[in-house]
């Protein structure tokens, strides 16, 4: 259940592009054609699925406050989290290079379709953003971290696929000259983001009303006990 919730939340509600504006640079630069957009989107899913769990391991066993406790009690007080930027970006950059080499060696056809995008990805804010959000939202387990990486990647993929399709069609429309190209893309993205905001109530809609009801019940039972106790004391 936790997994399903995180999955849909990262794709629709906290969509990388529409809710947090991550990866906007490549989103705007590579969205002129659907085929290239699909290539880049797939590469983002792939890299995020690898780097987010990896950075989760780094964060949990190296960087967090007290994460070094497994080395021995004298290391338990170290807090290396100020190093997380440099560690995360180094992991991402090396992983991207490694993936590029491996893919080139074992699957030339995949390399031909993904290869040119891989260097672009090292500097894509969505990848680093995924790891940083993973850290700041305190994701609990390795499985959830993997889930978060994949689903955020899918969210980014959906966004770039949608804008690329719209841009292919918009070429036939009569856009005011000064808005052509970049300007209209910004405005269309804004409108898409408004659309995506309507997913906001998807997961929280039902639960929120029940929880306070339960707590009030608990409180009233306690109060009754208190009252009962008080009356006993008085008696």
């Amino acid at each position: 259940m936790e997994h399903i919730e995180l999955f849909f939340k990262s794709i629709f509600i906290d969509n990388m592009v529409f809710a947090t504006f991550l990866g906007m640079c490549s989103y705007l630069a590579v969205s002129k054609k659907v085929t290239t957009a699909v290539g880049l989107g797939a590469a983002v899913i792939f890299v995020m699925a690898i780097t987010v769990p990896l950075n989760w391991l780094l964060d949990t066993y190296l960087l967090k406050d007290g994460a070094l406790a497994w080395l021995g009690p004298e290391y338990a007080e170290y807090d290396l989290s100020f190093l997380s930027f440099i560690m995360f970006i180094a992991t991402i950059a090396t992983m991207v290079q490694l993936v590029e080499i491996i893919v080139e060696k074992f699957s030339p056809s995949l390399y031909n379709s993904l290869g040119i995008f891989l260097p672009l990805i090292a500097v894509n804010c969505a990848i680093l953003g995924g790891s940083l959000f993973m850290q700041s939202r305190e994701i609990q387990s390795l499985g959830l971290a993997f889930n978060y990486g994949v689903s955020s990647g899918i969210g980014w993929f959906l966004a770039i696929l949608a804008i690329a399709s719209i841009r292919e069609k918009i070429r036939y429309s009569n856009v005011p000259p000064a808005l052509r190209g970049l300007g209209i893309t910004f405005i269309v993205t804004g409108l898409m983001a408004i659309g995506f905001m309507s997913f906001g109530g998807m997961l929280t809609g039902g639960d929120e009303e029940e929880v306070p009801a339960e707590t009030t019940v608990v409180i009233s039972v306690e109060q009754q006990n208190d009252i009962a106790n008080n009356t006993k004391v008085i008696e």
Partner: protein
Amino acid sequence: MGLLSKRDTKLITDPLADNNPITIQVLGICSALAITAELEASIVMSIAVLFVLGLGNVVISLMRNIIPSKIRIIVQLIVVATLVIIVDLVLKAFAYQLSKTLSVFVGLIITNCIIMGRFEAFALANGPWKSFLDGIGNSLGYAVILIIVGFFRELLGSGSLLGFPVLGDAIEKTGVYAYGYENNGFMLLAPMALITVGLIIWVQRNKSKALIED
């Protein structure tokens, strides 16, 4: 002008308008949009980028002859990451509340395309002084857009500037609110940042026709 020759001045003034990093080169949009709901955050972000880009450009430019071109991206990322850690620690020490507002977006300066873009396009091919000016110019161009967007979003969204209520009090109905004006909460949400930048691009391209794409 002994300090700045004519070409040096151009390095600073060009990115402010005709070669603006955000609206023309399409670089560094990620962070530009997310933190502009308040003017103060946009100003601090601009200063952070100014520091990182100015110094980073100098460092890269000094090292440009010894960096092997195959691993240059990793080297560049490490240089930026180090500078960003300095910014992050300074913010945490002196403006803790603000660093909470900016949250992960300070870290995302690392992958801000402006920085990598300027390293690749300028610092790897030019001397330190020119690169420094280029860095300053580009981050000022970035700052201009951020501040314009932040100004309008905070003014229209919460009726204040830098936290001071300039349009009067929304609850007690003073100032403009007495005439029935309401804060447009929509301006504070993510989509309006995109649309505001879109409108800035529209205005800018209307003014100089040479920038219009076909």
